[in-house]
Structures are given as C-alpha cells and as structure tokens.
C-alpha cells in the first residue's frame, strides 16, 4: 500500500534553493528606496571627446556602468569602440551588457536549473542528475568555499549539496560555518532554518534566528521564526513584532507574503479564523511559491477559505500548490509533472517523492516512474520509511520484488513500534503484499487483516478504505477465496463526499470492483 504524505501541520518554513535560483525569485531584495547617487562622468566623457583609444574607452565604459549614465552618445561610441577593438573578454561583455541588456522583467518561469525540462511527453527521457556529476559539484564547491574565506554563500551551497545526498552531519557543519560568517544574512538564515527544520532540529534553527539582529526587523526571518515555532507547537515571541511589521505598512506585499501566511497559520491553529483569513488574504496579494502552497493547503482543510489557484499562474515555481490542486482534481498527469518539478526544485524534500510515487503507482500505472522517483528521493533521505515503503510497493506491483531485496531487507528491519500510528496501517499492508509476492499467502492475509484492524482502531476511514482496496486487489490477483467477503465489505464502506481524497478513493474502489467483476468466475 503506497503512502501519500498527509501534512497535518504544514507551515511556511522557507524553501531552500541554490543561490542563483533564489536570486531569480527576488526574495533577497531590499526594495526600500535606494539612496540616489549622482555620479558625474563628465571628465571621462570629455576625455573621450579629446582622445579616442581603448584605454579612454574602457575608462568611460566603466564609469558609465557605475553611474548608470549609459544613454550618452559618447558612451555609445565608446561601447562600439570597445566591441570592435577590445581585447579583454570582460570589457567586451560589460560593453555588450550596457549596450543591449537592460534585463527585461520576467513572467512566470520555472527556475529549476540544469536545464531540466519536464512534461508528460518525455517521461522516458527523464534523467535524474547523475551522482558523479553532483559529487564533482560538491568537490568544486568545497574548494571554492575553502578558497573564498569569509564568503558564506559557497558554504550554504555545500550544505545544500550534502543534504541532497543525505549527509546531514556534513551539511550541518557547512551551515554552521555559513551562519557564523554571516549571522545577519537573510539567505543564509533562511537556508539554515530549512536545513535544520528538516530533521527536526528546530531549536538550532530558532537559536540562530534569535541570535541575529536582522530577525528583529526582517519580515522574511520573523516569518521563519514563527513558522518553526508553530511546527514545535510553541508560541513565537516574534509574533507581536510580526503583526507590528504588517501594520506598519513599511514593506511591500511581496516582502510580507510569508510573514502574513505564518501568522495566519498560527491564528488558524488557535481557532482565530477571522484574523487568520485577513492575514491569508494579505499573503496572496503578492505571493511566492511557499505562501501559495500554504494557502492551497489551508483551503483544503477549511472550506471557508475562498481560494482559486488558477489566478496565480504568474507566480514562479508554484509546483507544490499545483501538484496538490491537480491531484485533488484527478489530473494525474498534471499533478505528476508538478511533483517532479517540485522534487527537482527542492530535492531534499520527502513530500513530492511520496505524492509523485503514489500517483505514478496508483493512477498512471507507471511503476518504473515511481521506482525512479523513490530511488532519487532516498538519496537525500536514505532511511525514510515512507519513501522506502512506496519504492517496495511499486516494485511489488511490477512483480520485480526480487530486484530490490536490499530495500526489502532494510524495510523488514523496521519495527512496528518504531513508526507513527498513522503509518502502521500502510506498513502492515505493504508487509502483507511482500509476503503474498513471496508466496507466503496465509501470512500475507494475516498482515492485511492486522492492517485493517489497526485502521479500525485509528478510526481512519481513508486508511481503512485503502487497506481494503489493496487487500481486495491482492486477493483477486491471487484468486483467494476471501476475495468475495473482502470485496463485499469494501462495497459497504462509506466514502465521505467532499473529503480531501474522496475522488481518489471512489476511483480506486471502482477499479477493484471492475477487476473483481472480470475475475468473479475464475
């Protein structure tokens, strides 16, 4: 039985991307008015009028670039002179940049990096980054970090690369260097918060956030503090400050998007719906991918939030929100493409792997896609029970369990008592499937029955339905006599219309009933 991760407590803990892609999302800008500096370049212009050579041209080009006075005819002449006569690549590049290159504002783009293009037409050409390439990148970044004393950025990049391979200790050490080098840097602190929130080292994340002077007045960091505290079920002492920042109206809506969302989430959890809604409304005035996903998540939990995701197609990297939305609507192809993009965007995250493999296994019937995605996801989270579960499930459905004996061994070492209750039903059912595949039919049945019993104990309708659906399917496939009883029981189970997964469950049940109908006389 595959597991789709139901996030009970999603918060707006910052998303962590590499520096280059983070820049493109404009989350590091300070949009207060920059002080006006009027730089006089008349000397350089006059010199160019009097003497035209590459030295004077270079001088004028540099001066024009720094002052921003690039529209003068003399500057234009000097640029052309440099492009024609220049021998320095750097100088020619600068001249060309001034010449043509007022960078246009971007519309909606996927900032995935590495030229990754994903669409449903080219699943078979889909390639996950090779380990060797990533290791080369780690080596290069490590050298860069050691050579560039005092530069925190390569240390953050290194931590991210390590975390993609699940080397948490190394990632942790690199990130500590980064926060010590730059204790007041938004990029560093947000990245650190994400790194440490992932293995639930919340205290460490909060420690560095509190230690920074910037956290006292930066909405992006106050938001990170509130979101992390919320995950810990704690009250953030920065909540009041955050509310003050919102009411000060000194920041743009984009600067406030995560802060409003994190305060809104806290208020929602506290039952203050009216205040919460007002903050969520603010959060989507100029949202980023994170606040939008939060809105999508909360609106699925409470119908009083009126939210239409399709109004936000111009926001960059909104893969998570659209994956959730399309999954909900039964657009499996669309949802899977977005989970892949979500994974490539944030490769250390478990949730896109679970959602993607769930969709690939159950609805696209592409076990190969589920297997590849789970294997890629295990790199960052090598001991993650949930990914391991979905990987084995996909192998089993593909009748290739023998090809993943190492994973099965690892899975079987997990003790029932070690995993959270919510996952025990899945764990028992998947073990049941393994036993069926290995020919231990009776033991397999026993495990499925245990799974059903556990779901009843948890009073979880969804889990119960899933357990029955999977059990029925395996019984039908193995032509076991119990199939009639189990299918009848499945028919009787009620699916709550309007619940988050109702469409999925109707569909999956229908599928089993059709399979049963085809095999009833066998």
């Amino acid at each position, binding site marked *: 039985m595959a597991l789709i991760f139901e996030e009970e407590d999603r918060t707006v803990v910052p998303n962590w991307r590499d*520096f280059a892609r983070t*820049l493109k999302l*404009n989350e*590091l*800008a*300070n*949009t*207060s*008015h*920059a*002080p006006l*500096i009027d*730089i*006089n*370049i008349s*000397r*350089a212009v*006059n*010199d160019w009028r*009097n*003497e035209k*050579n*590459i*030295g*004077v041209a*270079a*001088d004028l*080009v*540099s*001066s024009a*670039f*720094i*002052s*921003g006075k690039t529209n003068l005819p003399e500057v234009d002449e000097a640029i052309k002179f*440099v492009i024609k006569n*220049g*021998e*320095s*690549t*750097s*100088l020619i*590049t*600068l001249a060309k*940049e001034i010449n043509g290159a007022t*960078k246009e504002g971007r519309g909606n783009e996927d900032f995935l990096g590495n030229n990754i293009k994903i669409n449903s037409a080219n699943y078979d050409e889909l390639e996950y980054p090779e380990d060797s390439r990533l290791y080369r990148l780690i080596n290069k970044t490590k050298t*860069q970090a050691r*050579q*560039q004393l*005092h*530069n*925190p*950025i390569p240390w953050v990049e290194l931590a991210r690369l390590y975390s993609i391979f699940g080397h948490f200790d190394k990632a942790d050490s690199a990130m500590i260097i980064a926060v010590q*080098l*730059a204790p*007041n*840097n*938004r*990029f*560093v602190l947000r990245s650190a918060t994400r790194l440490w929130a992932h293995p639930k080292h919340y205290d460490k994340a909060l420690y560095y956030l509190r230690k920074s002077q*910037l956290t006292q007045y930066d909405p992006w960091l106050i938001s990170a503090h509130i979101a992390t505290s919320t995950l810990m079920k704690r009250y953030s002492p920065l909540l009041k400050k955050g509310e003050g920042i919102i009411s000060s109206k000194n920041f743009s809506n984009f600067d406030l998007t995560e802060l409003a969302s994190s305060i809104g989430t806290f208020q929602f959890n506290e039952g203050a719906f009216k205040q919460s809604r007002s903050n969520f409304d603010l959060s989507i005035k100029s949202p980023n991918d994170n606040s939008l996903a939060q809105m999508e998540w909360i609106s699925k939990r409470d119908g009083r939030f009126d939210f239409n995701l399709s109004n936000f197609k111009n926001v960059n990297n909104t893969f998570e929100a659209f994956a959730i939305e399309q999954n909900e609507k039964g657009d499996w192809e669309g949802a899977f493409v977005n989970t892949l993009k979500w994974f490539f965007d944030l490769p250390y995250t478990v949730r896109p792997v679970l959602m993607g493999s769930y969709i690939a296994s159950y609805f696209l019937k592409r076990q190969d896609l589920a297997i590849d995605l789970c294997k890629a996801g295990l790199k960052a989270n090598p001991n993650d029970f949930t990914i391991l579960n979905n990987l084995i499930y996909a192998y089993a459905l593909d009748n290739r369990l023998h090809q993943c004996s190492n994973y099965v061994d690892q899975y079987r070492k997990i003790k029932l008592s070690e995993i959270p209750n919510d996952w025990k039903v899945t764990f028992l059912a998947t073990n049941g499937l393994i036993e069926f595949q290995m020919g231990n039919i009776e033991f397999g049945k026993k495990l499925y029955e245990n799974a059903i019993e556990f779901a009843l104990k948890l009073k979880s309708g969804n889990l119960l339905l899933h357990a029955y659906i999977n059990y029925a399917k395996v019984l039908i496939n193995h032509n076991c006599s119990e199939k009639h009883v189990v299918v009848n029981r499945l028919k009787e189970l009620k699916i709550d219309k309007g619940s988050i997964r109702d469409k999925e469950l109707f569909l999956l049940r229908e599928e089993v009933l059709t399979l049963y109908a085809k095999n009833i006389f066998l």
Partner: protein
Amino acid sequence: MVINDNAAYALKGRILKGKWEVTERIESKPGSTGGFFSVCYKVSDGENIAFLKAINFVAFFQIFKGRSIMDILAEQTNAFNFEKNLLLRCKSKNLSKVSTILDEGEEFVEGFTINNVPYLIFEMADGDLRSRITFNNEVELAWKLRSLHNVSIGLKQLHSVKIGHQDLKPSNVLLYETGITSKIGDLGRSLCDDIEAPHEELGNFTGDFSYAPPEFLYGFIEPDWNKRIRATDLYLFGSLVSFYFTGINMTALIGKNIDIQFRWDKWGGSFDGVKDYLVDAFYKSIAEVKASISNKNLGDEIATLLSISCYPYPSKRGHPRSISQLGSQYDFERIITKLDVLTRKAELDLWR
C-alpha cells in the same frame, strides 16, 4: 568681465620668475590636472620642457553663476592652496613616484580686472596610462607590472608624508620617459593628516565616484580617519590592477558580477545587509581577472593581490600579517615587494 578680460590666457611669451619661458598654450590633456579652472601652457627653462597650470579665476564665475563671489573665491583659493601645499611637501621629500611640482608662483599681468595669475609648474608627462595601455595580456606584461610597481611605491611615499591620494584612477597615472616610469598625479582630491582639506565633507569619498570603493556607494563610512583613508587608497590601487588586466575597474567588475537587486542603485538596505553578496561578487570578479591572464601562476599572484587590496569592506582589506609586522594592514610594503618580484620575472619572460 568680458571673455578677453582674463589674465590666465595672457601668459604666452612671458618669462616667469626669470626662468620659465611660456612657449605655447595647450589644451588640457586627458587626465592632466586642472580641468575647468585652469589654463595650461608649455614652459621651458632652456633645458626642460614643463607643464604649467594657471588658475583661471574667470572660469569660477562662469561655472558657478548665481553663487556668492566670496564663497567661490574662498573655495577655489583654498583648493588651490591645499593642492599646492601638498605638492610642496611631496617636492621637499623628493617623492620619486609622485608627479610633483617643479616650481610655483604668481604672475602679475597688467591690463586685466584680476591681474594676478597663480600658477604651478609640473614635469611634463607623455600622457596618462590610458594612452598606452592595451588589454592583451600576452604582451607588455613586464611594462604593466613595472607600472603597477611604480604606482604602489608612489602610494607608499604619499602615505609616508601623511597624504592619502583618494583619487587614484587610470587618468591619474602619468607616464614619463616614454612610458618607462609611472607616477601618480593630481593631488586635488587628496586628504592629509595634518592639513585640512577644503573638500573633505563628513568623511565621504573625495575622489571620482565612478572609481569609489563599494562601501561609499552604499553609504557606509568607516569612522576611523586613518583606517578609512588608507583602506580607500588600497582599494583604489587594487581597482587599478583590475583595470590594467581587464579594462574594468574593480567596482564595475563587482557591479557586473552582483545580481542587479543588490547593486548600489537598487539596494535600499544597509551596507551590512549587502556585504555578503558583495563578497560573493568580489570573488567572482577576481576569478574573472584571473581568467584574463593566461599564465596560471601569474593569475594566482594577481588574484592574491586583488584579494588583499579590494576586499569589499574596509576592515578586511590589507595583508593580515602586516598588522603585526608593520603596524598597519594597509601598508604597501608587501605589495611593492611582490610586484617587484613579478616584474623581474616578467622581464625575464618567465610568465609566457
């Protein structure tokens, strides 16, 4: 005053101080000192041809129309005297790598509303750095390194007489002896430890802002005067190194390598908030200069020189070892020694 009523334009043919014959009026060359407020001449003492800069009072009234005459006169006179005093100090100390004055005086020319013409006489330069430089780093490496060596000595000499140049840029590197020697020119925007500069305002950068170290563009002023002046000169020197090899000064290179949202004309936050991004761009800039030098060892040496000189924030500039041994991290001694070695290797053609 009519346009012809200008004694500064009437010096041709005169013998100044019984020694200097004013032979011809010349246009101010690119980079030569003076600018709008001076009239330039060639002068000769029979052996040497020199360059005369006569102060042009009339230009004051043309440029600053509407301003109080007293203010203008006071401002310009102070500026002239300040530069003259610095130049005399340099002359008295025989600074070999600073373009100093040969003579100075005041000529009385009859028949004009203002009869007095103060003047300064300098060595005649062949031109400035820009007239000679190319950015092909396969040729003239020895010349570039020797020129930088000269400039570093010039800065060290200025610092030894308590002067911070503050306006070092390609146009202020003057070439002599057909380019063999480079000297630093134009002390007009300099600052001095014990002579008050009329242009020093609230500690801001006094030189050409299109060469300013990044901290000034972001409104940060190092409070310690000595530290600020020396750190600024060190940066300007490194920026010049970058110009020699790429044609772009370091501030422009950093601007090119930093994301536009952090650039000085876009960033609305503090210098402290942007400095990590400046550091990142700075390292990218160094890599760019290195890439322009085909010899790897020389590229590494130049990169080290830049990392010492141009660190984006002043407190981290300079050679860390210089603090304990020379008393100041901004001292040029190590740079001079290093450039001397690099020049000698280049002269032996070892960098090819």
